[in-house]
């Protein structure tokens, strides 16, 4: 099994760009898997330099194959990227409009929750909004307003979402601290599954400008109540 093609398969099925170090880790994990075939075990401890060389060879191969996509390296991570010649069709396909369409109310609400509570899982968003948000999440991801940001250290290790730089640009915010005060939103309690985390994640988001958050009407997780957000002035 050629290293080059294994890396190709991994990059094809990855949702995000992969660095040579990440690729090496995958090779190691595959080698250590129980019942791993000889071909997988043979690639244990592949050197990052070798992976790098294979990636460059792979990129050259794709370049010369003159297909509609190529393997690109951005900031040290590798990813398949379509050739810009096909932009007219991809724009039509992805619904990219010259003027971005207004976000719908459900999209805005979901985005607001993610902005104030990031990183947050889909289940937690749904608990606050009270409706399924799969479609909305997909839209927001397509528009690059949110990204997957690791997995929660809870049962099932669900994906967490966070806002992007494009989100800040979209709303003209300098940073997350520039979000208008919405302390109440931060305090809506969310029932989390038995957490492996000891740190309470409720308050990791930007500090609020509300000086004295009163007790909200809703019953709040005691850990949150006992540790109100510090009220620094902007």
């Amino acid at each position, binding site marked *: 099994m050629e290293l080059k093609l294994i890396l190709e398969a991994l990059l*094809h*099925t*990855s*949702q995000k760009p992969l660095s040579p170090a990440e690729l090496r880790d995958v090779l190691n994990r595959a080698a250590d898997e129980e019942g791993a075939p000889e071909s997988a075990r043979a690639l244990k401890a592949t050197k990052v330099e070798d992976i790098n060389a294979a990636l460059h060879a792979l990129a050259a191969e794709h370049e010369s194959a003159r297909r509609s*996509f190529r393997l*690109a390296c951005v900031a040290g991570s590798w*990813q*398949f*990227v*379509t*050739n*810009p010649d096909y*932009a007219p069709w*991809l*724009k039509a396909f*992805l619904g*990219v409009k*010259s*003027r*971005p369409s*207004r*976000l719908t*109310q*459900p999209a*805005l*609400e979901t*985005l*607001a*929750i993610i*902005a*104030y509570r990031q990183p947050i899982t889909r289940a937690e968003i749904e608990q*606050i*909004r*009270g*409706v*399924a948000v799969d479609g909305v999440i997909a839209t927001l991801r397509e528009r690059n307003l949110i990204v997957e940001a690791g997995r929660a250290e809870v049962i099932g290790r669900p994906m967490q979402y966070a806002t992007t730089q494009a989100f800040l*640009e*979209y*709303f*003209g*915010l*300098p940073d997350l601290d*520039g*979000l*208008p*005060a*919405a*302390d*109440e*939103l931060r305090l*809506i309690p969310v029932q989390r599954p038995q957490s492996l985390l000891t740190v309470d994640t409720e308050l990791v988001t930007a500090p609020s*400008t*509300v*000086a*004295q*958050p*009163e007790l*909200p*009407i*809703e019953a709040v997780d005691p850990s949150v109540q006992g540790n109100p957000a510090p009220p620094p002035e902007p």
Partner: protein
Amino acid sequence: MPEYRVQFEVFEGPLDLLLHLVKKQEVDIYKVNLTRIATEFVAYIEQMRELDIDVAGEFVVMAATLLYIKSRELLPVEKQAVVEDDDAQEDDPRWELIRRLVEYKKFKDAAFQLKEREDSMDLVYEHQPGRPNIPAETETPRSAVSVFDLVQAVASILKRHGERTDIREIQADPHTVSDRIDYLRKLAATKARFRFGELFETAHSRSQVVVTFLALLELIRMKVLVATQSGEFEEIWVEAAPPHVDPAQPELPIYSGPGPQQPSIQEVQPNEQPTQPPADIVPPPVAPAEHEPPSPIPIAEHSGPSPA
């Protein structure tokens, strides 16, 4: 003899057992000795009975068929049931049985191939979308959405979240939207402009923040105030709107929120202050009236059913 029990479970029916017996003879299925098969089949069923295994009806039926074939074979040919010539093959019970066995065997093989496909599907992974390389437009205009839309979204979440709470204390709410509208209009009269953030610096309760947001949004919608921003990442400024009010725009009934009072539309006067907004101003987030539904504040809007 538990091995019979185990073995029996493998057979999916009488045809499956027959195929097994045919295979044991190691001859072509068309040349199989059905008399011998019949004997073995019946012996098998007898053993199952001895072991108290429930013999399914289908096995009994098949045993009967086989015994019929066997008894028929024992007779001299001239004493066998007379068979019409042209249909002889089709109605020969031996042929009928073999035909069924062949057919069953083919489907058993087909099922095996499906199984292989089922297994291989575990090994096939779907491609994840690559990054589309779409060159940026010469100038990407700022979207019609602003931070106010986000704030509005926050407000409606809070509203709904409150509604969903099963049991809660109802508190007298000292803050009303109309109070805050009055306050903001006074503020706008005394100050040329003020920072967006400064509106909330003195807020000290949940409802006050929300109500202030809503009042601000309402005044912007009524074109009493405008929010401007000179560029991305710049401070958002709130100031009195330029005096012209579109006469075609009907004044619509506005916010009815937690407060007991309805702000009076008639009180709203175009602000006399003649300041024009700077040229690079970002338009207020609320779209022109002709596109706007009666109430732009989606307080009562539910995008889906709320759980109990």
